[in-house]
């Protein structure tokens, strides 16, 4: 039930509850204090009356002596309408102004209720220290005290109720104004859509408690914005990458069909079309591969692999290309892991191809393997210009090409190779990054240790 209340109502209710408890506690304490105070007052009053009675009845030790003093006693008592007296000695009641009232026998002060009236009863010996002395029982009517206490209790309840109500209202108001930044946050969140991902919460104006939340929220918006930008850039890139070969195909086919030509021309046009189509097919296949990786459908086999053998096979495969480009290609080190041979070969192939493409003649490409208790490390390092630091984070983006001259769709490399490599490495639970300085660039794959 309370979970469904608004935060402001919840706070208001809590405030009201706290105030009620506090004022109730104060009331109870005050009530107790006044009651104790009244008891003290009554005690003093009864003590003074006792002194007066004792002096009036001094030396009385028999009913006979009492009878002599009784008129004086009566005269004294007549001035004190709230006092009633009972005198008991050796089981006999010498005087009983309250016949039929059951009174406690123990000496000292007692409180009791009789027929709707409250009394204070005080038992004391007439002559203290004398054995067999008569027992005085003073009965004081304290109705007026009780009335006062009752009035006060009513007042306390009223105060409790009213202050709770007041704090509930004030609390509701305070909570509403205190929670205004939260509402503003809600408004911004409600306004977020694919077109307004750039909106941010004003972090500086936020109270300390919400600043962190606002920061988290802004960071989330930032990530969303980034992902969304990448996605829309990806779609735009796909369209662009496909548009170039498509327009080539359209133009070429239309031109070739405008007039009769020698057979050889048709063949040539078809071959050219075939090349464009193959590029498109490759692009679509690569994109499907990436889409599968994005959906977590890239499930590598887990076979034990001696990576040195795989690297050797890859180096053999690339040896011709390296020789052609006059680049020295070599590998060193040992490492073992479990993974998918085909997928890892593809990843390594992309890295080697990339490295060879950017290594000038006379340069070097080196593959190094290392393993320790934490995992396996495979690096592909090449000499060359190196990669500028601002480009490093973009290298694994789809359709990113380090060489601006290759940006147009005419290139046979669509710029998906490193993105695919990254997907493969991630599917194996590893990570890939690139480091570079002037003169060299190094791609590092870190894989978890084999089982």
């Amino acid at each position, binding site marked *: 039930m309370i979970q469904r209340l608004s935060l402001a109502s919840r706070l208001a209710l809590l405030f009201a509850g706290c105030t009620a408890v506090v004022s109730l506690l104060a009331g109870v304490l005050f009530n107790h204090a006044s009651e104790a105070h009244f008891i003290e007052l009554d005690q003093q009053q009864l003590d003074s009356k006792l002194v007066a009675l004792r002096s009036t009845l001094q030396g009385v030790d028999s009913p006979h002596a009492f009878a002599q003093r009784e008129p004086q006693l009566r005269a004294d008592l007549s001035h004190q309408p709230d006092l009633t007296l009972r005198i008991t000695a050796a089981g006999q009641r010498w005087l009983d102004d309250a016949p039929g009232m059951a009174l406690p026998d123990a000496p000292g002060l007692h409180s009791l209720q009789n027929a709707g009236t409250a009394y204070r009863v005080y038992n004391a010996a007439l002559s203290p220290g004398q054995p067999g002395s008569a027992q005085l029982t003073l009965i004081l009517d304290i109705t007026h005290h009780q009335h006062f206490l009752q009035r006060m209790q009513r007042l306390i309840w009223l105060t409790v109720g009213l202050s709770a109500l007041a704090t509930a209202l004030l609390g509701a108001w305070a909570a509403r104004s205190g929670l205004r930044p939260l509402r503003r946050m809600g408004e911004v969140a409600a306004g977020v859509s694919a077109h307004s991902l750039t909106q941010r919460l004003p972090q500086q104006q936020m109270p300390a408690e919400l600043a962190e939340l606002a920061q988290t929220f802004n960071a989330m918006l930032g990530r969303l914005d980034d992902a969304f930008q990448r996605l829309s850039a990806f779609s735009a890139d796909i369209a662009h990458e496909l548009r170039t070969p498509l327009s080539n195909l359209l133009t070429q086919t239309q031109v070739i069909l405008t007039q009769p030509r020698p057979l050889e021309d048709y063949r040539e046009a078809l071959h050219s079309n*075939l090349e464009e189509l*193959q590029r498109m097919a490759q692009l679509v296949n690569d994109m499907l591969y990436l889409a599968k990786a994005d959906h977590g459908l890239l499930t590598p086999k887990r076979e034990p692999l001696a990576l040195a053998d795989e690297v050797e096979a890859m180096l053999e495969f690339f040896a011709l290309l390296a020789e052609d480009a006059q680049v020295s290609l070599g590998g060193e080190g040992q490492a073992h892991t479990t993974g998918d041979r085909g997928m890892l070969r593809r990843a390594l192939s992309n890295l080697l191809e990339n490295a060879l493409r950017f290594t000038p003649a006379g340069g070097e490409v080196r593959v190094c393997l290392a393993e320790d208790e934490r995992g396996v490390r495979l690096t592909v390092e090449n000499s060359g210009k190196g990669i500028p630091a601002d480009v490093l984070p973009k290298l694994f983006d789809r359709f990113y090409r380090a060489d601006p001259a290759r940006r147009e769709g005419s290139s046979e490399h669509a710029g998906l190779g490193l993105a695919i490599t990254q997907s493969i490495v991630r599917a194996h639970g590893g990570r890939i990054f690139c480091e570079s300085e002037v003169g060299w660039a190094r791609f590092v794959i870190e894989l978890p240790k084999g089982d």
Partner: protein
Amino acid sequence: MKLLIVEDQPKTGHYLRQGLAEAGFTTELVADGTTGQHLALTGDYDLLILDVMLPGRDGWQILQAVRSAGLDIPVLFLTARDAVEDRVHGLELGADDYLVKPFAFSELLARVRSLLRRGSSAPQETHLQLADLRLDLIRRRVERSGQRIDLTAKEFSLLELLLRRQGEVLPKSLIASQVWDMNFDSDTNIIEVAIRRLRLKVDDAYPNKLIHTVRGMGYVLEERFT
């Protein structure tokens, strides 16, 4: 060699049939699964080419019916579906190979020939030959017009593949897979470089060229008379 193609897309079916017919196969094309299954069970085919998504009965069902009838015909699946589970599913049911659309026709042709060759055990050859090119499998030596040619191990394997499948257009992906065991799509031009080097040793010094490039499709080893 008689082939059955079950493919519901008319254009795909048509070009498959034409391409395979021109490659020397007798083909029959049906567009729905029910007829396809009936023909597969009753006709005497050497190979089935099945699409997965078909009206009537799908490719998996046809394959199951064929296998449970005890027929051991090689089956090649063509599909636009490329989920790993699908691949595993197809192979579990007894499919022999699997091609994902879009695929190159030369790739399909190469796989069809591989599947058909699998059944017949070729006699152990000691020599492969085309025109004046002669490859000695036992001593691993190559001669052309009686002259010895020195080849590296990979060059030898490449030439052996071309010779064994002479007259067939071999796509680059098939060459990478057979010679280097690289079974992934790669847009590298390594195969081009390898072929160029092989040509340098095998073809360049001789007027009668044997290794030919088929643009956009692959390479073929054959004697061409111009």
